[in-house]
């Protein structure tokens, strides 16, 4: 192959409809395959590691081909990009054809063309050509066709703009793909954790987890979120709405917004969307000795054991505390919590030093325990209990483009499938070459034929109906 032919061959491949099928099948299979193996982005590193341990044979293949990250892999993204390029190049010639069909000149054709069409009829009627043309136009108009006439030829068309729908649909898919790539490159999403009554400033280092696209460029806005109150919330009709967070959003000391964030009701500001995510409890433990006092709120998170637990080191004592927190405790043979409301908080503490258990037992709110450490008497108090809430904060500049493209995609798909262009050509042939339109013994022949892009059977029926209405043999 000569050098000049290579670009042509590439272009020819990229606009191939066969390539489109191959890419679609590949993406479909890869997408389905990705659901069978846990993905790091969804399941988390720990789960994936555990799964791979349980499946040692598959694990080697997974790690070699990075199958636990299939949707973020360069191979998958390249195939997606290739599908976008292929769709674009396939659409280009169709746009030209469609524009020609919509805005080009009306094409009248003779019987030679009409009789070669797959759907055509020849009808002989004994009436004048002029009246036949007039009747035909009326019938066609009644069926929604726009007709134009030139001499003894008629061109009728219905749903003309429908021919633009398929290229628009395909181009909107390209825009959707582009916007997802753009969004992925420019977005950030992170998780902020705030204890009731405390603040969070939107800055990279303050997130407990953050992921930024390669072109996000640290465009943080440094606004402040104050969690005024985290509380259970209900609809006006009393229906449970889940927990809600009353927040104050401020920037440079000025309060910008005061709002309540709950499920399906995020707070939006400067392109950032702030959604309520998880919640838990933050007990305040205070350590007292004769000469010092220290304390802090501890984040207790909900675990797979269906308990709120936390593990922390008590100041610089070298004591490790494991806490199970019961916000609404009932103490019987075992301790259980009957709700997520802090009606009767109780913390079950296990204190250990150098692996040796030094205390194990329950601690009620506002109670304390005493213990000796290196001959110093100390007390640990359970002084307060607040909720903590985590917020999923994200910024995706592609959303307006994506939503617009989705809307156009759905509308154009509807048009492509149901607003089908139909074209009918007619030529009236006077069997005796009598162009004056007078009736004679042999009458006239109406050659009528047409095309529909889709729904060919119903077009066939419609053409037959038109012929029946004209009458004749």
């Amino acid at each position, binding site marked *: 192959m000569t050098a000049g032919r290579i670009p042509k061959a590439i272009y020819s491949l990229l606009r191939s*409809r066969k390539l489109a099928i191959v890419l679609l099948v590949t993406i*479909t299979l890869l997408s389905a395959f990705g659901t069978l193996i846990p993905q790091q982005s969804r399941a988390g590193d720990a789960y994936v590691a555990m799964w791979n341990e349980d499946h040692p044979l598959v694990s080697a293949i997974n790690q070699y081909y990075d199958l636990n990250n299939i949707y973020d892999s360069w191979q998958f993204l390249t195939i997606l990009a290739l599908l976008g390029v292929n769709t674009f190049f396939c659409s280009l010639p169709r746009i030209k054809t469609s524009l020609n069909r919509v805005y080009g000149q009306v094409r009248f054709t003779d019987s030679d063309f009409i009789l070669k069409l797959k759907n055509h009829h020849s009808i002989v009627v004994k009436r004048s050509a002029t009246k036949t043309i007039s009747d035909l136009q009326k019938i066609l108009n009644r069926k929604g066709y726009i007709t134009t006439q030139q001499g003894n030829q008629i061109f009728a068309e219905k749903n003309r703009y429908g021919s633009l729908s398929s290229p628009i649909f395909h181009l909107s898919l390209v825009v959707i793909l582009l916007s997802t790539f753009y969004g992925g490159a420019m977005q950030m999403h992170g998780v902020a954790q705030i204890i009731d009554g405390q603040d969070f400033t939107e800055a990279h280092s303050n997130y407990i987890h953050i992921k930024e696209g390669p072109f996000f460029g640290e465009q943080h806005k440094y606004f402040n979120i104050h969690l005024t109150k985290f509380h259970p919330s209900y609809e006006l009709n009393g*229906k*449970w709405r*889940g927990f809600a967070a009353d927040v104050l959003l401020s920037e440079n000391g000025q309060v910008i917004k005061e709002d309540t964030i709950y499920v399906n009701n995020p707070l939006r500001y400067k392109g950032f969307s702030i959604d309520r995510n998880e919640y838990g409890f933050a007990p305040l433990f205070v350590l007292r000795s004769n000469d010092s006092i220290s304390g802090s709120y501890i984040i207790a998170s909900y675990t797979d054991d269906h308990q709120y637990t936390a593990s922390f080191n008590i100041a610089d004592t070298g004591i490790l505390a494991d806490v199970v927190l019961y916000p609404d405790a009932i103490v019987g043979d075992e301790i259980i919590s009957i709700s997520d409301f802090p009606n009767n908080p109780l913390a079950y503490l296990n204190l250990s030093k150098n692996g040796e258990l030094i205390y194990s037992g329950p601690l009620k709110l506002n109670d304390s325990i005493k213990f000796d450490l290196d001959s110093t008497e100390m007390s640990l108090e359970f002084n307060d209990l607040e909720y903590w809430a985590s917020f999923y904060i994200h910024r995706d500049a592609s959303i307006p483009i994506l939503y617009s493209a989705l809307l156009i995609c759905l509308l154009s798909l509807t048009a492509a499938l149901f607003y089908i262009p139909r074209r009918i050509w007619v030529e009236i042939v006077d069997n005796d070459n009598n162009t004056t339109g007078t009736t004679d013994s042999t009458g006239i022949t109406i050659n009528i034929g047409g095309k529909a892009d*889709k729904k060919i059977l119903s077009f066939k029926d419609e053409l037959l109906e038109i012929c029946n209405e004209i009458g004749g043999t």
Partner: protein
Amino acid sequence: MSDTESILFLASATMYAISAAAYIFSMTFRKDHWTVRASQFAVLGAVFHTVSLALRWIEGGHGPYETMFEILSSTALVAVLVFLIVQYKMDKIKLTGVLVMPALFIMMGITATLPQEISPITPSLQSYWLIAHIGFAKLAYGSVLIGTSCGIFYIFKSGKESVSNFYERLPSLEALDDLSYRFIAAGFLFIAVMVATGAVWANKTWGSYWSWDPLETWSLVSWFTYGIYLHLRLTHGWYGKKAAYVSIVGMIVLIFTIFIASTVFSLSDHSAYMNI
């Protein structure tokens, strides 16, 4: 679940079973008027079914989309309604009831084995997007069920006209192929709307319009499968039998997506809302 609701649910399943039997009887013994009776039984079943779900709605204070029982039951109802409306408008589609009604009866049977308690609604489901998202999923299922039935009939009928007159009562091969295409094209659109509304809703609720959740991935796989069907048909001339086989593959994928994927993939965000 109240006794009245339970009785009406069983009555509707019974009516669907009788309707299925009547369709099969009509086709086997060439008794045309039995298709009318079969439709009447299906209508009666749909009425019982609607009242049963309405009672559940009133009792639970939310629509039938919280538990797998509710999802399957309401999907079956929408499929029956789509079938009844379509056959009212298109007489030649009537005999697809031979496949559609037994399929729906089996679906009702599976539904009956599921836990039937009414659960309180999950807060994230309290959204208008839910109606569009779930509504179009059900419409998609109803449409492709009819489309695939036409495809299956096409396979049965093709090449057998001279062997048995059993198939003569079906629409022509050309008509079956065309009808199959039209319903699957509608299904393709409905799946597209379901995926799009789901993406918008997910962005609002979970903060991300697409997270490769197993169920959303399988919805995309279903859409791609029907996209491949349409491409093969419209650009590569895969009509008739070939198209019918692809439509069957699509139906299997869609059934897996709507009814099985959420139970198989425990890591799906959807599983948490379906109270399986």
